[in-house]
């Protein structure tokens, strides 16, 4: 089936199988490999992207469901060489180690800060419930998101 999807501001037209998952469309067809696959059960959150501005797990969305809609992936977060405050925060606060969960963490945190620009530590921890990190113990991911919250550019 034919789909037309906007990804990181660019529109793409492709013929896809009805059963294709969005995460594989992004990774294999568009070669946007910053979105990762860490599990088979929508549990790890490594595949989190934004669908029309909201965080979704792209392993649980059919490519066909994204037809006519807008996707933002980790590759679309920086403005040229200007990093998104969350990207800066993760670097400044050592919010990543192996980096595999990081894109998903950044995407879910962006959604959180959109809804709640000044979250408490408790609110941040709850917002990250759908995303596993096995390296950082979450400690510095919390700091990274707090950094972004305090350094956000006023929209």
């Amino acid at each position: 089936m034919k789909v037309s999807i906007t990804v990181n501001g660019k529109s793409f037209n492709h013929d896809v199988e009805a059963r294709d998952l969005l995460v594989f469309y992004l990774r294999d067809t568009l070669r946007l490999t910053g979105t990762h696959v860490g599990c088979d059960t929508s549990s790890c959150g490594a595949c989190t992207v934004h669908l029309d501005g909201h965080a979704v797990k792209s392993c649980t969305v059919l490519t066909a469901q994204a037809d006519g809609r807008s996707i933002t992936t980790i590759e679309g977060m920086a403005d040229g060489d200007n990093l998104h405050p969350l990207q800066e925060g993760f670097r400044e606060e050592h919010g990543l180690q192996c980096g595999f969960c990081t894109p998903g963490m950044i995407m879910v945190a962006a959604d959180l800060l959109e809804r709640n620009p000044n979250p408490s530590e408790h609110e941040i921890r709850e917002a990250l419930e759908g995303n596993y990190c096995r390296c950082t113990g979450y400690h510095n991911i919390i700091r990274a998101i707090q950094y972004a919250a305090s350094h956000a550019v006023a929209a």
Partner: protein
Amino acid sequence: MGDTQYIGKSVKRVEDKRFITGQGRYTDDIQLPGMVYAHIVRSPYAHAKINSFDIASAQSAPGVVAVFTGDDIKKAGMGGVPCGWQLHFKNGDPMVEPPHPLLIASGDTVKHVGDGVAVVIADTRANARDAADLIYVDYEVFDAVTAAADAVKPGAPLVHESAPGNICFDWEIGNPRAEVDAAMATAHHITRMEYRNQRLAPNAIEPRCAIGDYDGANDRYTLYTTSQNPHLTRLLMCAFVLGLPENKVRVVAPDVGGGFGSKIYHYIEEALMIWASKQLGKPIKWTSTRTEAFLTDAHGRDHTTTAEMGFDQDGKIVALRINTLANVGAYLSTFAAVTPTYLHGTLLQGLYTTPKINLDLKAVFTHSTVIDAYRGAGRPEATYLLERLMSKAAIEMGIDQAELRYKNFIPPFDGVTQPGYQTNVALQYDSGNYKGMLDKGLELIGYQDFLKEQAEARKQGRYLGIGVSTYIEACGIAPSAVVGSLGCRAGLYESAHVRVQPTGTVSVYTGSHSHGQGHETTFAQVVAEYFGIPLSSVEVHHGDTESVAFGMGTYGSRSLAVGGSAIVASCQKVIDKGTKIAAHKLECSEDDLEYSAGTWTVKGTDRSIGFGAIAFTAYVPHQYPKGLEPGMDFSSFYDPSNFTYPNGCHIAVVEVDIETGKVKLLRFAAVDDVGNVINPMIVDGQIHGGLVQGIGQAMLEGVIFDEMGNQTTASYMDYAMPRADDVPSFELGRQVTPCPHNPLGVKGAGEAGAIGSTPAVVNAVADALAPFGVRDLEMPLHSEKVWRAIQAVAKG
């Protein structure tokens, strides 16, 4: 260390930019022209004989390129994946070492759920997976056994005919058992525990992946793989499995998404992709699903233990006696034999002066996923045993748990003016101040204040608990001659190559592998400091056998202690050569020169020459010392003279809801001595991550099998790992006793967090429940288990 420019500074990581912008390059991100995809058909039975395969329908399915079964592998005459360490029975016989074939052939038996039996290769992942469902395997199913304690019972199903009673080997360490028995008989009090240190799944978030790419024109092979040690994988695969010349095989471990031990080992899929790629003349990719990861990534822990610690009337330990069954799973993984033995038994001295220690251990085959080193690897098992015994004994004897430890600590020693501490279990500790560590830990958590708060809370029916744990580990693995004498089939040195370019920039090639540890930053800090040049002039490369001379990889908290020392050795060679060139240029003797901050200066003068100018001269040797080779390019291999001994004190504070058994972790303080610290930010990050894995074992994690040998926890829906809201932020402290035997004075930080934290949490829960008479707790501390422990005591 004195004034430094980079060492000891929390330099932001240079590798981060690619990860935070989605430009990391993990194995599964690699797409090669003409690539096809593999799906492995795995046994749904833990123990069954394969009567026959029917692959005809799969072969003609859409997009299918090839189907290979265990029969094809057998016909090709390939060896199985080997074990890298050979132990011996107490009677001197070698351990039982059954073959671990790449795929199981008809007529042979599968030995765990997930054993590979066939591989389907197709044009897309989906077509490979669809076709796999069309393969029919006729199995004759037998009874299976997955718990070590069941496997050693008479009449238990046999995993390998070559291993009667399912015993891989038996082993002991320490003082003779009779001496320990005699000392135990003098004890005023004996604390005893019977428990299972449960099986864990490492769960790096990046699933394993392997791409085999055969280049027929040049008869060369490339393996891209999720590995912590690409050279070791190449060596094992070439020498033992495929019989290929190593110089024809390149192994690349690009960005790797976490390892924690599980990506040390040479796995069947790696050799399979290389072999199949040659058969088909196409690059082939296999990517593990998460369920496959649960079934086939090497698990950790799984000890069934009875331990007794005897004390005199003053609370001094007089003896420690342990019997353990260590599950090794269905086959011997690469380091399976050493993990429960030399990485476990040798740490049973802990931080205490225990005069008599004996561990008697049996390594046991079961119809289950292999078990090998997982973060900490043997040392968490030793620490859990010691530290639970100590805190349980403290409650039983009515002594404060910190006080009991103070009574038994090895006194401080620096390893320089005072000798190292010789344990009763083979090791000689390098340096340490264990009392100082506990002092700092108690201060950080506010121990005395907490005890008051706890007493107040109990009056109000709230049950708070505090758990103290201390640990020591043997890291910086390892002196080759020592490990060789203990059965290791490899050397455990590390290599480093420092290449100075004509313009004074530096490329470093290390045999260590970074999969989250930040070597590209830490190692660059070391080199920039050593040369006195900007950090931006140094670039660190790793993970490719084509560019790195050799390497033993990253595990056992060894990268900086061993790999970093090799880098320092190469840096010294650069400076020594630079001194010769500088002496020639400045027309002085080498002895008149001193090197500092990137400059050679004639002592007592203002005549000097910089690093860049010397590098340039080395490559444009017009005015040059006679007989000296041009160039500035040095390799070193560093073989450590001893293990390093990081140690620490971890303290947990919990509240237990006695109505539901729910445990809430309120605070966690950790003081660790990892020797000198190059990058405090990175070291703290390593500690944080380790703590949560250790807390995960205490509170949430555990692999469970049903009676047929199925893992009932083989997905993230069923296996609970800590999420962000399961843990608090951490309070960290640090003590530094530099390692006396390596040039950086570093001890290693990768595993520390995972070692001390597990018993700290369980001790805290035991402390909270002490008023009820609860003494023993079973991990993981799910609400139900804790609630049942309370009820069991209440009912008497």
